[in-house]
């Protein structure tokens, strides 16, 4: 059992406490979800429970925190690690071993468990997390979902009674995320362990039942109750966390939410006939949004093929792109979706010239791209990597944004003018003389966008622009990109986020196993069960709500929702 009593914690490097007056009891066997926006203290809370605080991150505490009656501050991290197992957010970092088997064995090796028990236990746990056939594979050969199962196995092998999951859904595609939640639930039922999940993708976690949700804001617990009760309040939205879409839709339709309606899941949702009528009435007020029709292609891809050539004699070549045909229209905002390894990133790398295609053609405004080098293509197509730290190499913001222009050999006057313009567009003008390190993650992202924008490309490709961002930052980044798009920039978004694709993309291209299997509006794609299952996407819960209320035109319902949100809510 975990008990926080009047617990306050301040990192040594910070002036203000990160956790304040926490009073929390988690009973054995409970399944608890901790939600809250970035910086609300949920990671700190997790680190206090697993012992990284105070052992790795030092700070001062007041009050008490006990696990099974013992003060964690008096325990060693090793002793605590026998009770509390943690699955970290970054699966690649969590994966320490060179092979699956070694990673599973890691904790036992450190406990000096010898042969043959070591091998026997590894086999056992591999069975539980269903990774038995991959025991000798290296992490590079695994999919995101498999890595997650290995992480979980490596933690479970210790027979801990408490399992912590620190943002387990970050970087997983929708379907894999769904399976991860199912696996956690299965383990919870089988072992009876205490499960604590920290996550901001609320709707995805609620795919399986949780006992309690703890909502945090600015280091305090603002709600600690059942999902049904919490969803009936406005607290989640106020804290800057995204509610499940069906809940939002019910609110838009003016339905009074009550805990008795079993709001936590669409499967249990109990709507009265009156409620359903409300939803139908709201839907009947829809107007045709009139999506802009675009006819002028800026980029034409024809019969494109690309193969990763293996340099090792025993590995096989891998054809990553197969017969790709696509027209990207001038001024459109397009999403590229699909599982990890489906070819999304490879596709953008081939467009940018990072990789050379085997066959096929790439035409930019009718000009063949194949003759252009990486650098020359970059004059037309800007590529922004997922993590801004992957791109930033200068100390000062101005220099970072100016880098590309200076490399082109432009006069300093012209450079200054263009950089200032880009900084203003990105809302970074006030920071122009700051060092990059002083910025937040979201601001750094803007710096990388500004540094590409300054080069005045016609197309911008962004890899996972909102990964790991909470709703507030997500909205910030996406509204900013939308404003760029409205100024005429063609924007391509590579994403796992179904919400993003619904809310912002005019069209979505679905990749599966190296091929494009669909290219349509998000509302059409996310209501097509065949494509959803082939591309490991997730059906939007709006679809289910529409069905529940007897609205046959689910697609129209989804479109109306997005339209309504754009018009009335986003700017309110």
């Amino acid at each position, binding site marked *: 059992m975990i008990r926080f009593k009047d617990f306050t914690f301040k990192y040594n490097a910070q002036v203000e406490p990160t956790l304040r007056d926490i009073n929390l009891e988690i009973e054995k066997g409970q399944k608890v979800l901790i939600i809250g926006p970035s910086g609300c203290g949920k990671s700190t809370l997790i680190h206090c429970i697993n012992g990284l605080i105070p*052992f790795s991150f030092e700070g001062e505490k007041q009050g008490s925190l006990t696990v099974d009656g013992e003060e964690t501050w008096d325990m060693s991290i090793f002793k605590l690690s026998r009770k509390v197992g943690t699955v*970290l957010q970054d699966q690649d970092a969590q994966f320490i071993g060179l092979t699956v088997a*070694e990673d599973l064995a890691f*904790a036992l090796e450190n406990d000096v468990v010898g042969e043959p028990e070591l091998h026997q236990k590894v086999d056992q746990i591999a069975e539980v997390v269903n990774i038995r056939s991959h025991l000798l594979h290296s992490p590079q050969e695994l999919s995101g979902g498999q890595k997650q199962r290995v992480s979980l196995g490596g933690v479970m092998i*210790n027979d801990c009674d408490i399992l912590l999951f620190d943002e387990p859904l970050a970087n997983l595609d929708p379907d894999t995320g769904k399976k991860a939640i199912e696996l956690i639930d299965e383990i919870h039922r089988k072992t009876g362990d205490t499960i604590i999940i920290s996550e901001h993708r609320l709707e995805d976690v609620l795919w399986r039942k949780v006992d309690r949700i703890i909502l945090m804001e600015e280091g305090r617990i603002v709600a600690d109750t059942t999902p049904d009760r919490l969803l009936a309040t406005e607290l989640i939205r106020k804290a800057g966390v995204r509610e499940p879409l069906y809940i939002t839709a019910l609110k838009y339709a003016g339905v009074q939410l009550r805990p008795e309606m079993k709001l936590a899941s669409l499967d249990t949702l109990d709507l009265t006939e009156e409620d359903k009528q409300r939803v139908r009435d709201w839907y009947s007020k829809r107007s045709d949004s009139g999506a802009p029709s675009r006819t002028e292609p800026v980029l034409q891809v024809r019969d494109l093929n690309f193969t990763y050539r293996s340099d090792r004699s025993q590995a096989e070549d891998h054809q990553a792109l197969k017969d790709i045909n696509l027209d990207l229209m001038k001024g459109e905002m397009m999403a590229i979706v699909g599982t990890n390894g489906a070819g999304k990133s490879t596709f953008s790398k081939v467009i940018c010239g990072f990789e050379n295609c085997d066959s096929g053609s790439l035409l930019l405004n009718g000009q063949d791209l194949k003759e252009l080098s990486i650098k020359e293509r970059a004059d037309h197509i800007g590529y922004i990597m997922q993590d801004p730290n992957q791109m930033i190499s200068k100390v000062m913001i101005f220099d970072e944004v100016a880098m590309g222009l200076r490399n*082109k050999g432009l006069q300093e006057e012209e450079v200054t003018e263009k950089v200032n313009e880009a900084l203003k567009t990105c809302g970074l003008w006030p920071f122009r003389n700051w060092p990059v390190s002083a910025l937040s993650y979201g601001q750094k992202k803007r710096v990388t966008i500004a540094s590409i924008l300054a080069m005045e490309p016609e197309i911008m490709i962004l890899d996972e622009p909102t990964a790991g961002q909470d709703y507030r930052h997500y909205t910030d980044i996406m509204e900013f990109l939308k404003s760029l798009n409205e100024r005429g920039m063609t924007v391509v978004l590579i994403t796992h986020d179904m919400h993003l694709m619904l809310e912002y993309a005019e069209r979505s291209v679905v990749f599966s196993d190296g091929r494009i299997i669909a290219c349509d509006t998000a509302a059409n794609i996310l209501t097509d069960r065949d494509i959803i299952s082939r591309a490991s996407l997730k059906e939007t819960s709006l679809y289910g709500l529409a069905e529940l209320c007897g609205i046959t035109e689910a697609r129209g319902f989804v479109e109306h929702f997005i339209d309504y949100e754009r018009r009335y809510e986003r700017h309110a």
Partner: protein
Amino acid sequence: MRNLFNYISRKSPIHDLTGATKLVCLLLWSFASMMTYDTRILIVMPFLAFGLFALSKIKLRDVSFMLGFTLVFMVLNNILVFLFSPEHGVELYGTSHVIAQLWGNHVLTLEQLWYHLNLVLKYLSSIPIVLLFVCTTQPSEFAASLNRIGVPYAISYAVALALRYIPDIQKEYNDISKAQQARGVEMSKKVSLLKRLKAASTILIPLIMLSMDQIETVSNAMQLRGFGKNKKRTWYMARPFTRWDVLSMIFCAGLLGLAIWSNLSRGTRFWSPWM
């Protein structure tokens, strides 16, 4: 992109030896070939080495890159020795059989050629063994072996970790490099070395920043799973010694013994037919 350790999984008696055995044998073998210039021993070792290579079922094609690299190095080494001291052989062996007149007052001697023959034999006896070790030892078994021969496990594990993350870092480097090239950073041979070094820094800075973050996360992940808890640890990949392991080590120790005996008994490391 190639890894330092290019483990090639095949079924062979060499693969069946434990990593620790192979490491010990590699060390004994290399010491033996380094220590002596006794041609009678050195002439046998390459045959043995290539024989073992054949036994391991590793094809020359699998290691062509490394083999080519080391052979070029061997040739270079020989050329440099010859250019800088064309009469080194005479000094070593104490006799002089002139074959031809070279530049200045330098001469080409049989002794010099004999010395080069010995150098080549040394290379040929150790290169296959090193490649064999690299290709037939699983990286993590290597870490376990280091620990077994007395290297502290924290250091052994650091080796394994480095191997674990090299592919990730290579990929990261590649991505960052391409993205920087897209922003006009010139990495090709068209520009001066200084410019290329400057360009490399624009890739290294993000790479280092990312790696630092990752190191912190990894070390946290390791602590959370009890790394460093005890004075000892076990290894999943470790395997028990068999008769063949013991025999192999005895054989290599014998080889080293022979080399040492040859040196001590004759009071010199060198041997030539004219001595």
